[in-house]
């Protein structure tokens, strides 16, 4: 069985404040990413290519907090983090605090494949991008009027929940391909009004992103500092591998016992060695989607049974 799951962030998404046009836009964006990733798996492509394709589409969509449309730092700039991990040999690549790379997930993949390193940050990461022949874009490319307004509201101390949902708008994907290989990818602009230089869990292998063949692949979205302290993504894999927990139980324990106990909220998507997808969150909602070769196909935002079943 092959399968892919994606998320477009978790947070407080009160149904009343989410207009139906906006909801349609988010659902369409999620569906496009799910289609893009699933198409790779369907034609026999690797889990790694599938998660790259899906995250790339979410980065290009200004609705989501990654790539274009990313949340802005307190000085008004976009500062992007991303990571990718290949469950086959547990190879990984990540970038943090880049300001001029159109698709950070592509650069993370280059770090994995073309450098001897795993994590590159800031101007050094952009230097590497140029050496790899990736064109840089101006920081303005990432900025959208919605994010600008969100930053201004946040800086005035006003509530912003209804402006640009969700609060934790990281995007991510996990996949299991026909050969049983697992991969995970995550990309984000981080928190609105964050301090320049702040790095969250997304590019931290083991915290926001992890994949290990034969165990599971996990991508997280949430209050990053808590996910780092809990080594969230690897914690889930360790619970599955060492304690024999199901992916579902491992994720539930992490989100609803451990992280909630520490005061952190968010969500996780994961896929296990058999291609079973689990999506769970402790926030009001999580933008998410899943599709597999057994016929599962859904896009959802709220915890209630609101999934849109899409004809496979």
């Amino acid at each position: 069985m092959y399968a892919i799951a994606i998320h477009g962030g978790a947070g407080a998404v009160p149904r009343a404040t989410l207009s139906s046009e906006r909801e349609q836009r988010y659902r369409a964006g999620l569906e496009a990413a799910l289609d893009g990733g699933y198409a790779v798996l369907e034609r026999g492509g690797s889990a790694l290519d599938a998660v790259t394709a899906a995250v790339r589409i979410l980065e290009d969509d200004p609705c989501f907090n990654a790539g274009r449309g990313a949340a802005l730092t307190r000085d008004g700039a976009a500062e992007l983090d991303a990571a990718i991990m290949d469950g086959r040999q547990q190879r990984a690549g990540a970038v943090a605090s880049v300001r001029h790379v159109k698709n950070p997930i592509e650069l993370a993949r280059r770090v994995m494949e073309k450098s001897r390193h795993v994590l590159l940050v800031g101007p050094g990461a952009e230097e590497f991008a140029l050496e790899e022949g990736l064109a840089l874009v101006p920081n303005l490319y990432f900025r959208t009027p919605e994010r600008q307004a969100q930053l201004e509201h946040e800086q005035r101390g006003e509530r912003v929940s209804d402006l640009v949902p969700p609060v934790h708008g990281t995007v991510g994907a996990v996949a299991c391909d026909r050969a049983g290989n697992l991969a995970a990818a995550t990309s984000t602009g981080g928190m609105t009004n964050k301090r320049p230089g702040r790095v969250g869990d997304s590019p931290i292998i083991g915290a926001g992103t992890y994949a290990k063949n034969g165990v599971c692949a996990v991508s997280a979205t949430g209050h990053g500092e808590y996910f780092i302290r809990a080594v969230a993504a690897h914690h889930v894999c360790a619970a599955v591998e060492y304690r024999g927990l199901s992916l579902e139980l491992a994720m539930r324990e992490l989100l609803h016992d451990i992280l909630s106990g520490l005061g952190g909220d968010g969500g996780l998507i994961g896929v296990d060695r058999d291609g079973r997808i689990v999506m769970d969150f402790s926030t009001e909602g999580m933008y998410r989607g899943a599709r597999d070769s057994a016929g599962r196909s859904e896009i959802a935002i709220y915890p209630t049974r609101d999934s849109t079943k899409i004809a496979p």
Partner: protein
Amino acid sequence: MSHRVTRLLTSLVLAAAAALPAAPLAAAEHPIVIVIHGGAGVIERSHMSPEREASYRAGLGAALDAGYAVLEHGGSSLDAVGAAIRTMEDDPQFNAGRGAVLNHDGFCELDAAIMDGSGPRAGAVAGVHHVRNPIDLARLVMDKSPHVLLAGQGAEEFALEQGVGLVPASYFITPQRVRELEEEKRAAAGREPRGMGTVGALALDAKGHLAAGTSTGGISNKLYGRVGDTPIIGAGTYASESCAVSGTGQGEFYIRQVVAYDICAMVQYQHLPLAKAVDTMIHDKLKRTGGEGGVIALDRDGNYAMDFNSAGMHRGVRDSRGHREIAMYRDAN
């Protein structure tokens, strides 16, 4: 008497900002312990002059005793870890703070992390160029910011806001490291990076709290912007209520395997003794993937492990059972 008071005051100052109770330690069920490392790598008797060996031993001893002094006066494991690492950061022999290795462009980029096992709370910095003691800045990130990891210029901006003075980039550069970079650049391109002189410390205090810290300049000739395992919570640095680990080695391998956390997970979930979990990680999991290096580990009962799959590792341990040991070679010396 006044001499003792002076010594105590000196210790208090050395032990940094924390106010330490001067009362003697109550007999605890567990010992107080500090474990340190000064990096793993090509450390062999045949390559070491007696002077250099004595100098390393003195440096390790100074760090060990600085950390132990904090614990002995009832200080916290966090303060002990900070004191031990600060001592090694200031010592140009070690690859952290002054004397850190240089990146491909010829300057130092420093990473550090600290974790309080009883929080769990953590702070880390990556890619800083002008912070004399990165371990102190990591502690400030933990104590004074809502974040865990700050990188590059943003981290230095935070340092200034916290009143930490910056030093010129040249402060960190030593002639020895300049020579090493030149050698590294002359060596065959694409070769696996050498030089794993990261420093780290773990401590168990009188209250039974564990802490871990690690600080490094990374690997010689690294790409500008490269971040290794040191500031990655779970990879090079981790502490929980029951287990603390600090690593030194080829950081990329440590990140991929989430080495520090995985050791604690094996102890907690597979019920392996600490030394066995460390052995499994270093000689099986890490070695199988080609990763070279070592770790130090400490549990809440005061059991510790110092193990490596490289030629040697600078290391030391001191506890209230009267044990004090400094070693660097394979044969426990």
